[in-house]
């Protein structure tokens, strides 16, 4: 068991019933767990939702969070996604100051490099959409900061274990570290 503090991505399949989000977030808060991000949405089965958590702590914290989650009656299954080969994404929307001219071109170039999209353009600012792993999203935020970020919103991370086919390590453009 490792005593080092790490970020773990947990994925919980939960019954899609009223109050389940409040129940889970309340449990995590009352037991003092440190949650970096929490994302929730319906799954392919409309009776079930999927919650993705990023938990900060050592292995014993992770073990307890997993067990306490599983103890909640409406939680169907908990998977430590980060212990496997997985894909994670975070979606970001950002308004950044971009007056027409050079600045705007520079920002457009950076958005392209980060494979983002400009989804709205105003007279003085543009809105950018970008998705990817956390460090990429974070890097993009740092690049934009000097231009003046006026508003920023993120979904929180979602994650999925990769399919167990062939050689996962070279799973196309989604290979670990590539995005």
């Amino acid at each position: 068991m490792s005593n080092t503090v790490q970020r773990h991505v947990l994925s919980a399949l939960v019954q899609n019933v009223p109050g389940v989000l409040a129940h889970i977030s309340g449990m995590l808060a009352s037991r003092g767990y440190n949650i970096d991000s929490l994302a929730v949405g319906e799954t392919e089965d409309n009776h079930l939702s999927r919650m993705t958590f990023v938990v900060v702590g050592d292995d014993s914290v992770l073990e307890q969070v997993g067990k306490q989650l599983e103890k909640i009656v409406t939680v169907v299954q908990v998977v430590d996604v980060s212990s496997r080969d997985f894909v994670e994404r975070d979606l970001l929307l950002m308004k950044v100051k971009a007056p027409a001219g050079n600045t705007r071109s520079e920002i457009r170039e950076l958005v392209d490099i980060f494979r983002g999209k400009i989804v709205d353009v105003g007279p003085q600012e543009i809105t950018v959409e970008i998705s990817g792993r956390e460090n990429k999203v974070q890097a993009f935020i740092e690049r934009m900061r000097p231009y003046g970020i006026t508003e920023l919103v993120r979904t929180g991370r979602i994650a999925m274990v990769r399919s167990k086919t062939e050689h996962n390590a070279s799973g196309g453009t989604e290979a670990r570290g590539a995005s």
Partner: protein
Amino acid sequence: MSTARAGTDPQLMTGADILVKSLVDHGVEVLFAYPGGCSMPMHQALTRFGTSLRTILPRHEQGGAFAAQGYARSTGKVGVVMATSGPGATNLVTAIADAKLDSVPIVCITGQVPTKAIGSDAFQETPMVEVCRGITKHHYLVTKVSDLPRIMKEAFHLAQSGRPGPVLIDMPKDVQLGNLNEIDMDPAMNLPGYESVAPVVPSETIRQIAAAIKLARRPVIYAGGGIILGEASEELQQFVNKTGIPVTTTVMGIGAIPPEHERSMDWLGMHGAAYANYAVRDCDLLIALGVRFDDRVTGKVEAFAKDAKIIHIDIDGSELNKNKTAHIPVRGDVKQALTELNKVIEQPEIKDWQDHCEQLKAKHPLSYDQEFDGILQQHAIKVLSDVTADMDTYITVGVGQHQMWAAQFYKFRRPRTWLSSSGLGTMGFGLPAAMGVQAANPNSLVIDIDGDGSFQMNVQELATCFCEDLPVKVLLLNNQHLGMVVQWEDRFMGRNRAHTYLGPIHHEEAAGPSNADRFSYAENRYPDFVKIAQGYGCGAATIRDKCDLEPAIREMIAHKGPYLLDVQVPYQEHVLPMIPGGMTVDDMILE
């Protein structure tokens, strides 16, 4: 408990009728219910089911909920309590939290404002589900009558399976009044995430445990409430008989093994027997069965059994490695695990260790001053224990010094005969819990050993005892103080009295440094408990002299109805031994 009856009922029924019929189908014989605006339809329905279900009216909702606990703790069946919305419902909250910490199966039904009014801050509206999320095993807000049979079935299933606990069902008034026909009273449950049966402990784990035991030279069994809840005390005793391993229990585990058993080391922890704590300190293998390494047991957790390998078996996987890392963590039912172990276990070579434990026991017995010519609390309990030894007796307690002394000096020889709010430590538990025990066991002797502080927190339930023919006895150890807090003041706070005296505030004991002698009594006693009890219609007497104790106890037991025996005791007596909070066995205070 019988399971729900199958089949459909073609008759048109209201939600309230469905709820009550479901209670009957689930084998509920008694419930404790206090009506109000938003629960009246359910009470009306209760009258329609007449004799198949007894409804007891407590005098406070908390009393009702602790009575439901008393019913559940003494029988193992699900206790049921009902209250109206708002204040009625919130009055249940303490008892629900209590049931969660002590794993007591109860179903709590609360009235709620009509679904259309929910969220409007209506009269007597509280968001009960929100309030109770963290203190229930599960909770429901019923929004459709058609969901009700399934929810009732799930609630009973959840309350009593796996690690038991409280389940809340919040019933809006319109759901109670709504009609339904074509009712399937035994629908399928929808609990895809709930594992009601613990996994079978694999035979290789059993072999691993047996091997660890064989190698041990200084093993100790640390048995808890899981043994009682899991009905595993026979298996535990077999295990102890086969292995000869000394056994200590938690406060929740009292009754799992008779105190006269040659391997019994009584109970451990903050006020547990010194020999139990020493044995755990010195052991090389700790066999933890249905326990949770509570701080009142472990003290400083790093120092607890620090040289021992730990085997931890519990039905709740989240208890494994929570407070203390186990070398062999086993999720499973203790009864099943012990049954399998008993088939293969061999006696380890521990003669020296057994001798050592016997010596510890002889050297550090639980004791009190026998010479004192008044009545010490410990003495009152010991005499009660002797007098009732051959009777079918249940003991409930409040919280504080009297609770610890009852655990120390009353001999509990059967599981479920000792009822104590152990995890939450709720003062006022004793009298209403006794009421619930008496309702479940009408022919048994049920005694609430209480303190004057705890007793007054639910004193109103004397009315329930009288009016509902529940002949509960109260042995009141009346020292006019909050004794346990006084003890901490004496030990750790320079004897400065800070709101621990229960009489009028101009008394010298009410504030400031105390220089009272060891056997001081608080004079000008207040209130007059005999008059209070008599006012409620109960028998009552007060005593102070040692020679009066045994006859008074016999008179109390012989009394037909509820009875209160006010025993005047001094207030400077301390519960010993004591391991101060967060400290280790070596810091134990012995005198």
